[in-house]
């Protein structure tokens, strides 16, 4: 069971797919205009990730090595189709605002990367927790980016107006939204700053020697298997 906990922590912190591995940038930058969108995107990806990791791990001895990529894609695509229809049926508002990025989860490099580098080589239970950890790490990162962008760009959080807006007409004092943060350039700025802060915290922790060994091993253990990631990252850009 210890391995499962380690997998969770690995996905959430040590190898956070957004801030550390820098995978899946396309949906990250595109959908995080609000925290709600971040949750929607994150949870649907988590679902697909857990299910596909589980199934691929179960099938890892049956799938021939030479056709593993198409096989993974088929597995991932089936779960994405389920998520797609479920969201269209039950959360039509969120479905509309996420748009094309739901079907695009199929080519999300986090999912293919985990399938290739972890699930196809490990037992079922750790693979499920690996998917869960990675998915939650992705979700947390998307919510963080979405929240910063929503607060700065609209003065809202989860759609609620927390900063009263200034009104030119009535002369009421208040917050003037910095609209650039809900436009595309804002996504890059916020992502860069959050990644920088996270790096700074990590470096400080290493300097103090606190948790240093864990961070080292957390990264070092997977470096060898990370080989699958760059090729998967390339796919995302297509």
């Amino acid at each position: 069971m210890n391995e499962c906990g380690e997998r969770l922590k690995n996905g959430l912190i040590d190898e956070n797919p957004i801030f550390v591995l820098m995978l899946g940038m396309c949906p990250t930058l595109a959908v995080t205009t609000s925290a709600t969108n971040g949750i929607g995107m994150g949870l649907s990806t988590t679902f697909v990730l857990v299910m596909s990791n589980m199934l691929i791990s179960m099938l890892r001895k049956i799938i021939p090595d030479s056709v593993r990529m198409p096989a993974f894609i088929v597995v991932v695509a089936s779960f994405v189709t389920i998520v797609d229809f479920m969201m269209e049926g039950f959360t039509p508002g969120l479905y509309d605002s996420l748009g094309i990025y739901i079907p695009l989860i199929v080519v999300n490099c986090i999912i293919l990367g985990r399938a290739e580098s972890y699930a196809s080589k490990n037992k079922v239970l750790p693979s499920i927790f690996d998917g869960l950890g990675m998915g939650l790490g992705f979700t947390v990162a998307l919510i963080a980016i979405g929240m910063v962008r929503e607060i700065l760009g609209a003065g809202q959080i989860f759609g609620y107006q927390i900063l009263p807006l200034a009104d030119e007409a009535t002369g009421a004092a208040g917050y003037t939204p910095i609209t650039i943060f809900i436009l595309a350039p804002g996504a890059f700025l916020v992502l860069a700053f959050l990644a920088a802060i996270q790096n700074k915290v990590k470096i400080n922790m290493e300097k103090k020697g606190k948790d240093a060994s864990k961070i080292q091993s957390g990264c070092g253990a997977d470096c060898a298997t990370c080989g699958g990631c760059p090729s998967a990252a390339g796919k995302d850009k297509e």
Partner: protein
Amino acid sequence: MENSFNISSSPHIRSKVTSGNIMLMVVIALLPATAFGVYNFGLPALIMMVSTTAAAVLTEYIYEKLMHKKVTIGDFSAVVTGMLLGLNMPPTAPWWMGALGSVFAILIVKQLFGGLGQNFMNPALGARCFLLLSFTGPMTSFVYDGVTGPTPLSYVKSGALDQVNTMDMLIGTIPGTIGETSVIAIIIGAIFLILMGVIDLRIPGTYIVTFVIFVGIFGHVAHPEIGFFDPTYLTAHLCGGGLMLGAWFMATDYVTSPITKKGQYLYGICLGVLTGLFRIFGGSAEGVSYAIIISNLLVPLIERVTLPKPFGKGGEK
């Protein structure tokens, strides 16, 4: 006498020109435009100029203190950035907007990329576009003499040439941003810079000539009632908007313009074509800031293409 026998490695003769000197001269050259802007728009313009300049210098100082770097506010480059941003702001915008722009210019566009000499685009223009995208309303509403109205350039854009008074545009008694309205004040500063050898005519000259040719031809395409190279149309385009301020003070920024001569001509042509394209066929009436920023991004490529060959290289094989 002892000093004469000092032994050191070359270079032995150094120029007295430092980046501090050059930036100080740019500050002096910007003064006529600033003074006219304050005279034209009154106290709000002065407050805006002070807030942008102070915020730029303060940001640079605080960042360098926090990061334990050498404090470089003495070289006036932050002052120039702050002043240029102030000159690019409409006088009616609230002062904190200018200050926020200065923080963005210095912190994100300049310091995070490594400080003076490392920034990939003009900090003042980067900040202007940041503000333009963030606060489109306040950044594009121009009040003159208590009346909110279109700038002469918007009239030019819609082809209403009878609304345009070229003399007013030359002197600067028109709505616009603080520093862009008076062509005469800008030219005075530019002549000072040219005489002091800080800038030369290559970039601004190519820019303006290309722009005139482009607008002369395609102005007719967009508005068939205006003839090829219509003098009123051309002067209105030349004197309107930020073209003069951009061409003389911002396109010539050493850091973000090519150093090779051929490259400078190429850069000027690029600027002229882009500005004309944005002004005639783009969504808004003005296009100078985006044209300069995009050309800034092309500079590394331009320099790579126009790198001169060392003597003796690339001869017969």
